């Protein structure tokens, strides 16, 4: 089973997935998109129309910062995680694990219809 996730399910977790892929080193938009796609086994694909406004919002929230660099003569915008972003990532990862565990527990208690 290799289905994509619904937009509603992704809504609350995209920002911390972005923080997650930026945790190791600075990346530019396309690389962030590709890393998330690869890490999720192609199940999470962020379209540019979602990715870039979100990056700009996270930058406004000071979770990430950006800088323009010219490699091979072309200007490129690189993003890196801030100390505030790292702190939020740690908190969100813990919360997310607890949430997944909680949801799993709830749905294991009650029978639910199997999808076709």
């Amino acid at each position, binding site marked *: 089973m290799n289905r994509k996730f619904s937009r509603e399910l992704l809504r609350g977790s995209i920002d911390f997935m972005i923080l997650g892929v930026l945790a190791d080193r600075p990346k530019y*938009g*396309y690389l962030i998109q590709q890393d998330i796609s690869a890490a999720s086994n192609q199940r999470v694909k962020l379209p*540019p129309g979602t990715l870039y406004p979100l990056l*700009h919002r996270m930058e406004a929230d000071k979770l990430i910062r950006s800088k323009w660099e010219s490699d091979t003569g072309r200007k490129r915008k690189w993003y890196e995680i801030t100390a505030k972003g790292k702190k939020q990532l740690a908190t969100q990862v813990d919360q997310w694990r607890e949430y997944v565990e909680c949801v799993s527990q709830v749905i294991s208690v009650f029978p639910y219809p199997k999808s076709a």
Partner: protein
Amino acid sequence: MDQHRTEKRNMANNQFEKYLELLKGFLKLAESRKEEIAMELRDHLDHRMDQLTRKGKSPEEAERIAIKEFGDAIRMAASFVDVSDFKRRRWMMRFTTFAIVGSFVTALFVMSMWPQNGPIQVASSQAQEETATPATSKEKRDPRGVIPATTTVSRTRSTAEELAIRALSSEVPKFEVEGERLDIAIQKLSQAARVPIHVSKYLEESGVDLETPVTLKIENAKLTTILDLMLGDQIESTDWDYGVRDSLIFIASQDNFEEMMEVRVYECSDFAVPATVKSPIHAPFGGMTGAGLGGTGGFFSVPSNPRRVVPGQGNTPLQGSPIQKLFRVETGT
């Protein structure tokens, strides 16, 4: 490499530039900011086209797919504008918060510096100073021992008067003298009541013997009661009176008080309308109680004591005074 990408994009009819122009048209942002966004999106497109052409797509097909992935230009523009609005709203919220906090702090500062609050401490310290060094206060008076009348009524002075008035009607927990000279007894009373009491040196000339031995033992009595008991019951002369002048309780002869009489003019509405009453102090000598006007004295300092009655002497110092004439003050005699 970048030149190669650009050539490929140019070859593909440059549809993406039209997309960017459309996007920029809907971005309500500064021109530099629009160009930054366009530059970032171009970089993304180049990467994506590279990836697609590597998979065998033609440049035209690659660009078509890439542009389709970007989605609706209007929706993307709205998302960017949302971010910009969010930043603006947050800035406004911070500014408003700062302005409110700043205004509050300023208001607190102004209130703390307001003459009504600030000088109260000055008045208190003045009162303490006078308690500690009565001689210094005495030096400020003229050689006849009369406090010079002043026509300027400052709030500070008024507050000092109020404090002394309060002291007159406050209870003294314990006062005990046995065979003490009158002047020493008054000094002890001053300490017990924590209020400066000044005895005019001309009091003796009016027949009051300051060496008269006084014996009194009393608890929880008002200062006025103690003064009445000490002076009225134990001193033969009746030519004495007490009143408040600035922060001082002043004991002097009737003549002294007449000379230092100060006339202050107040609007009658101040007395008639309760809302304008500035002090709830029940003046021990104000004479307004008998006038049926609310019993709120303390606005004026009249150096007489109509409440004090010396039996058989008909001591009515307010008779004939301007206050008496204006308000028909009943002295209670």
